[in-house]
């Protein structure tokens, strides 16, 4: 019953969120602020993690397929497909659930307990739309950019490990990442990222928006936001993969 009540409240909040904004100019400014908070500020973590993961996948793949019958360029193929199909969408989304999800839940939670959301309500402003919609829009547009960035940096990380650690000729790696390339995989990754953006922002916003109590409850909401977003991302990954790639 409690789960059903939460699901109902979540959809009611989304209905309030996805209404026509009161002022388009204000919404635009809010979206720009959120692009910075949700998107641009996530650049460093995505770059660092993708770089190292790209390098490590290359080393591990090379280690595992050391067989004279298998051409070296297969390492490049494997790294590319790993990044495209799973890492740069799902794994990056899990990282963003930790960074962005907890930030959204704690921001809205603090606004709730310090009566800032009540202040919006008594001004006659739709607080849900004003606070949540810009975050969702910013994430839906910017998370796919982060996904693309992760793919590029991950592939570059693989190249660096070939060139610097001398594990295989970089030319084979370059050939491999171009070999049998399906551009559809990029659409698949970006589509998944759009769904993940909605999950992370809406679930975290729901948990933060209805916080009751004090700082401890804000902390709990923040933790819940990460856990629940992560579980839903994995569930969505399964459903989307089955739907899109079957």
């Amino acid at each position, binding site marked *: 019953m409690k789960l059903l009540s939460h699901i109902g409240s979540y959809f009611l909040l989304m209905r309030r969120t996805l209404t026509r904004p*009161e*002022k388009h100019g*204000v919404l635009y400014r809010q979206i720009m602020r959120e692009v910075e908070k949700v998107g641009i500020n996530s650049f460093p973590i995505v770059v660092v993690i993708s770089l190292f993961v790209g390098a490590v996948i290359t080393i591990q793949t090379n280690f595992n397929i050391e067989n004279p019958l298998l051409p070296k360029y297969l390492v490049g193929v494997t790294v590319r497909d790993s990044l495209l199909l799973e890492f740069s969408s799902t794994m990056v989304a899990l990282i963003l659930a930790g960074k962005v999800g907890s930030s959204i839940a704690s921001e809205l939670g*603090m*606004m709730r307990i*310090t*009566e*800032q959301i*009540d*202040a919006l*309500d*008594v*001004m*006659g*402003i739709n607080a849900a739309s004003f606070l949540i919609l810009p975050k969702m829009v910013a994430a839906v547009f910017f998370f796919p950019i982060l996904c693309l960035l992760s793919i590029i940096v991950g592939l570059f990380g693989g190249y660096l490990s070939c060139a610097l650690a001398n594990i295989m000729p970089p030319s084979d790696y370059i050939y491999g990442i171009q070999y049998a390339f399906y551009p559809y995989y990029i659409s698949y990754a970006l589509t998944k990222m759009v769904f993940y953006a909605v999950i992370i922002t809406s679930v975290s916003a729901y948990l933060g928006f209805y916080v009751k109590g004090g700082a401890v409850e804000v902390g709990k909401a923040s933790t819940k936001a990460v856990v629940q977003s992560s579980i839903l991302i994995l569930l969505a990954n399964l459903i989307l993969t089955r739907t899109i790639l079957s």
Partner: protein
Amino acid sequence: MIEVKHLYKSYDGNYVLNDVSARFEQGKCNLIIGRSGSGKTVLLKSIAGLIEADQGEIWYDDQNFSHLDVASRQQIRKNMGVLFQGAALFDSLTVEENVLFPLDMLTELNRKEKLERANFCLERVQVTGSNKLYPAELSGGMKKRVAIARSIALNPKYLLCDEPNSGLDPETAIVIDNLIKELTEEFQMTTLVNSHDMNSVLEIGDNVVFIYQGCVCWEGTRKEVLQTDNEALNNFVFATNMAKRIKRS
């Protein structure tokens, strides 16, 4: 004028508001007083529409707020300024942006007019030279002043204040009280102030409503507060032994 009629609100079967009726006149500081947990904040939030009462009616002049749809309620709310206990300033905005916020959201004024209005409100509450500061950089008294400036930015007809001087030293508290009183008279607002501070009651209470265990237990003026025979009110007003001795003498 704001009027509440037979208001009830319960949580888990316990009545926090139990048949509360009161009338709050325009141009006066109407104080709702009572002990902590007596139901003052629930009453004020019910009047503001932040809490839905179980039963009863809330009237803003000739409009029954309880029976209005969301859109009509929002129209009334645009005439309502609310000062929250913790000021509720938006952390991410500067002082000036906080006061500009309702003007940006709810008016069609141009940028210059909005800035003029925001600066007028800030000057009116004696906050000058702090426009670019963030709430975290302000003292408690300053935050309350900025919150008052924001709540009067749209020239509201109704001003609701939830414990406006909680957490302030007595001198600053009186300054805030007097500011609320001056603004009420100047703009002829219907002002409701929740308080358990007796200094506020004696300083600005044109009409005082005493809430006791969720009911209106007593109503009168600030002068009558000191002369009443109501036992619950006397226990609240003359809470200290020294005050009790003064009352007896």
